[in-house]
């Protein structure tokens, strides 16, 4: 009941981590461990002989039970993203791919047209496609129709820490969606992750909020707790809002002195 299902895979953790912006690999690995995450995203780049000792794959492989979700960051077209995905699958040995196509470095907003096309191709090739998308219910439904595993609408701009600026659109996506909805990008604090889960998101993807914290491993654990709390609250059934006061104590008169 409490497992996150993506395709035929199940995860007990509903917190997915990005691996960027950590000061060093040791801090990143400790943060991943403390978060309890079972899935992290990584990027694909050219091998740099001068950084041959920075072996991210080995560092991540040392963490038991961790699934890699490579991303296609750096791609600005569907064609580039598909190419990156195919190469990444060879490296990761995992069918998961985060489709991320943002052609404008000024705002990093995902290109919905190129994203749709890349997802369509990759889903047909058997990838478990996890697209990073604008918070658009129509696009989300179209991506579900072409076989995406979840959809990952943005809360706000990547790395901005502006929180869930798109909450009403995300509520619509959740309401209409037959696949998991994962908020990706923009979260700043654990309370926002908790709110996303209470809203009905199946998971959240966090990077900057943890990596850029003063104490990343501690923040990772804080996010883990918030995600669990939000999910449990959702499962427990959050009480409806009322437009007026609803008494919690009996309103009968004190000591029976009034009518």
């Amino acid at each position, binding site marked *: 009941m409490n497992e996150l299902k993506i395709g035929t895979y199940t995860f007990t953790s509903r917190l997915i981590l*990005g*691996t*960027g*912006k*950590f000061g060093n690999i040791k801090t*990143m690995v400790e943060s991943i461990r403390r978060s309890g995450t079972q899935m992290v*995203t*990584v*990027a*694909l*780049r*050219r*091998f740099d*002989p001068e950084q*041959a000792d*920075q*072996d*991210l*794959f*080995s560092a*991540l492989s040392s963490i038991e039970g961790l699934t*890699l979700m*490579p*991303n296609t*960051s750096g791609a600005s077209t569907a064609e580039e993203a598909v190419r990156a995905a*195919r*190469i*990444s699958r*060879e*490296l*990761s040995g995992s069918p998961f791919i985060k489709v991320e196509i943002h052609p404008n470095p000024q705002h990093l907003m995902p290109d919905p047209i190129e994203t749709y096309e890349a997802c369509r191709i990759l889903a047909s090739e058997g990838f478990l496609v996890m697209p990073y998308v604008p918070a658009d219910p129509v696009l989300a439904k179209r991506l579900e129709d072409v076989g995406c595993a979840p959809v990952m609408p943005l809360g706000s701009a*990547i*790395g901005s820490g502006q929180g869930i600026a798109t909450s009403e659109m995300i509520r619509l996506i959740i309401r209409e969606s037959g696949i998991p909805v994962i908020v990706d*990008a923009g979260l700043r604090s654990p309370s926002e992750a908790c709110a996303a889960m209470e809203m009905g998101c199946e998971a959240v*993807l966090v*990077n*900057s909020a943890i*990596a850029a914290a003063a104490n990343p491993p501690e923040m990772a654990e804080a996010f883990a707790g918030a995600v669990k709390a939000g999910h449990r609250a959702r499962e427990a059934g959050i009480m409806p809002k009322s437009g007026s006061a609803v008494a919690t104590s009996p309103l009968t008169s004190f000591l029976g002195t009034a009518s």
Partner: protein
Amino acid sequence: MITITINGEKREFDEGSTVSDVLNNMGAEKQRVAVVVNENIIYPENRSSVVLQENDDVELLVFVEGG
């Protein structure tokens, strides 16, 4: 000698060099590296048998940190 392009840079290699030779030369043999030659992925089991040709375009790719 033959000239091949590795990650956008032209380099000289002995004739008959294999993909494995290039990985060793670049110090990439110990890492998990994806190899793409002229847009074709070369899987690990084939790297010691694929011989590179003049003007081949080789891309060596690894995972790096990202969100």
